[in-house]
């Protein structure tokens, strides 16, 4: 028996939760390619402050963004314990520097709440919904909203 796709039917979704700028966020697991330890980057000239530089990922040149800075928080001072999440969005591969990665969260899609309307800023613009968890909530990042088509021109 094949089940008919009902858009309203609850689906199981998995998210990877992370911390950036002291707040909890999550990214859908299907958009994540891999998670790596911080390695020094090659700086890019004339880049916006949140672009840290580029790294060599098995022969490909991958730009690395500071997620906290991109969201408008204090920029991260990268050290060995920081983590880079390699994501793939619209055929582009980009690395996001975050403070830490916590866990994989499996939830049913009907648990996702719409983002309450608040004052719009760098960080709320990139939020695609929230997931309540016990005593806190986790914000879902929309990578499409976070990453404009061309990083260089977004400066």
């Amino acid at each position, binding site marked *: 028996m094949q089940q008919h796709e009902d858009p309203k039917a609850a689906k199981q979704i998995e998210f990877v939760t992370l911390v950036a700028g002291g707040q909890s966020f999550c990214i859908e697991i299907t958009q994540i390619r891999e998670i790596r330890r911080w390695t*020094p980057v*090659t*700086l*890019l*000239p*004339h*880049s916006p402050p949140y*672009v840290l530089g*580029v*790294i*060599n990922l098995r*022969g*490909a*040149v*991958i*730009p690395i963004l500071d997620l906290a800075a991109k969201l408008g928080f204090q920029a991260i001072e990268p050290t060995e314990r920081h983590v880079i999440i390699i994501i793939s969005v619209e055929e*582009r*591969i*980009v690395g996001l520097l975050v403070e830490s990665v916590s866990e994989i969260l499996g939830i049913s899609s009907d648990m996702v709440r719409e983002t309450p309307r608040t004052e719009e800023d760098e960080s709320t613009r990139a939020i695609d919904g929230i997931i309540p968890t016990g005593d806190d909530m986790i914000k879902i990042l929309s990578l499409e909203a976070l990453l404009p088509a*061309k*990083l*260089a*021109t977004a400066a």
Partner: protein
Amino acid sequence: MTDSAILDAFFEECEDLLVALSDGLEDMREGKADSETVNAVFRSVHSIKGAAGAFSLEDLVSFAHIFETVLDEVRAGKLSTDDALLRVLQRAGDILADLVDAARDGLPADAEQVDPVVKELQSFLGEDGLVEEEFVFEALTLGFDDTPITATYQVQFRPGREFYATGNDPALMIAALQDLGPCTVRILGGDLPQDFADFQWDEGYLTWQIDVMDQQSDLAIREVFQFVDDLCDLNITEQFDDETDALAQEIAPLGVPASNTEQPAPDVTQVPVAASADVDDTPVKADKPAKRPASTLRVDPERVDRLINAVGELIINQSVISQRIDEAGLPNSAELHGDLDDYKLLAREIQEGVMAIRAQPVKPLFQRMLRIAREAADATGKEVNLVTEGDATEVDKIVVERLADPLTHMIRNAIDHGIEKPQDRISTGKPATGTLRLTASQRSGSIVIEIIDDGAGLNRKRIKEIAINKGLISADMQLTEQEIDHLLFAPGFSTAAEVTNLSGRGVGMDVVKTAITALGGRIAISSITGQGTTFSITLPLTLAVMDGMIINVGGQTMVVPISSILETIRPTKADLSRIGLHSQLLRIRGDYVPIIDLAERLGVRPSSETMTDRVLLLIQTESVTQCALAVDDIFDQRQVVVKSMQGSYGEIAGISGATILGDGKIALIIDPDAIAAAPTTELKLQIQAQREVAHAAT
């Protein structure tokens, strides 16, 4: 194979044939032709006609037919190849190419273009010639069913080694003949070696003799063999009753087992391939003219690209290993060093080999230009002779493709603006026919393409006026000749006073420059009034790998393309002079050259005043004649694999790409032209600033 795939193959074939055609016509024009040239030209047209007939491409068939008829007369020596005829033949060749293009795109033929040429071709034929031949053509397309006059044709068909090697099967040929009418097939084994030891596994020893009955001409038979007639010995004769059995006795009970003789084709695939390397293949085609089509391999470009990527990784891996070994601090005598050098050499050889797969000769491109030049000369009423040199120079496939438009434009420009009208040329003591030379050559890692005309040279006064009118420069600016010449490349510049048919279509030289820059190339002009203008385009040999100088810029490792570096200088205090608030000039051999602090330009760190502890790279760019890039240190000079940043990040001013170094780190590749160009792209300011610098220096 689907229909469209067959059609595609036909068009690919046509391209080759058109090249051969154009080659032949060019030879005829230059008087280098012999009877084989004319034959080759005829065959090209005939093959196109034949295949086009199979696809019912009527326009193409009927034009090719008239063309072929004229060529046939030439071949038979009935028409002499004077200039008038050659011109028409070349026009006809152009039209044929047009028709092939139109057929490929599914467009109708442009009658306005075609008809005059058809008329001209017809004028070379007597009335009867055309009518008579027309009949043959009709017969070809109508089929052979109800024609009463028939004859028997005897086909002697001996496939050569290449016939089998290219996967053809005599059985299919014979089957095709049987479709035409009743056939008697005999096999002649007279050439089989007497001694089995002499037997070459891949040689064709057998000759088939096929009598095809009820044919009204041999055309259909020839069509069967059309695509293999270079690969076999073929002899088609009209058969009269008596001699049919004359050859039958030769059927051979010779050195090879009889069962083998009866097989329709030796089964090539079952024979071990390694069998013999020193096979002698001369006897098979002894009576054929030497020109056999170059054997080529059609490969999906994607496969080649994958290979190129893998080789890129190999080169990176090689530099990783070199670096590791250096770090290991082995004694210099260690054998590993020698092995490593071998490895480097091999990696480079593989890389060059792989790049060579993508390389193509510029010949087809140049041939297109011959045609552009003819058309341009006709349209302007000027007499121009385009001479090409270095046709065999090979460049990357992409370069060949992307150069077509810029070259077309430049050739048209050269004829429209450069070369004078015949009467003007005569009055200045030049021959009435202008000469345009299109040359390609390879110079130390670069390809140089030059377009040289012997025309009037650039009209600098006029160029300046236009630039002032268009607001590109201010009226009171004093420009050097070179600066004026470079105005041609400014966006929105077009010298033609009125829009002519040829150039002046709104695309200027700036488009040419953009296209060439996009290929990583440079373009330069030099012009002598009254003697002509030379445009030279310098292109990198390959797009994927380049030789780079590894440098240190404010602690960052970067790469500068060797091709743009003229020399490296460690300046002494006496070589440097200050100018303006921040700038410095380098004095070199009496000239003053502006210094650009690379670290500052790239925003790595603020400008530093001291230059004496730095290394200066003297570079040559298009916009500024020369300038010196100040860098902190030079590490090494090596081959690097270019990785584009466009996809993942976007364009960065002053950076053309990135590469991965031996330690796995990424180094950015500097684009010297972009660095040298002033931060504001305004040409006015740029030239003004340049001028001030030059002025202050003197």
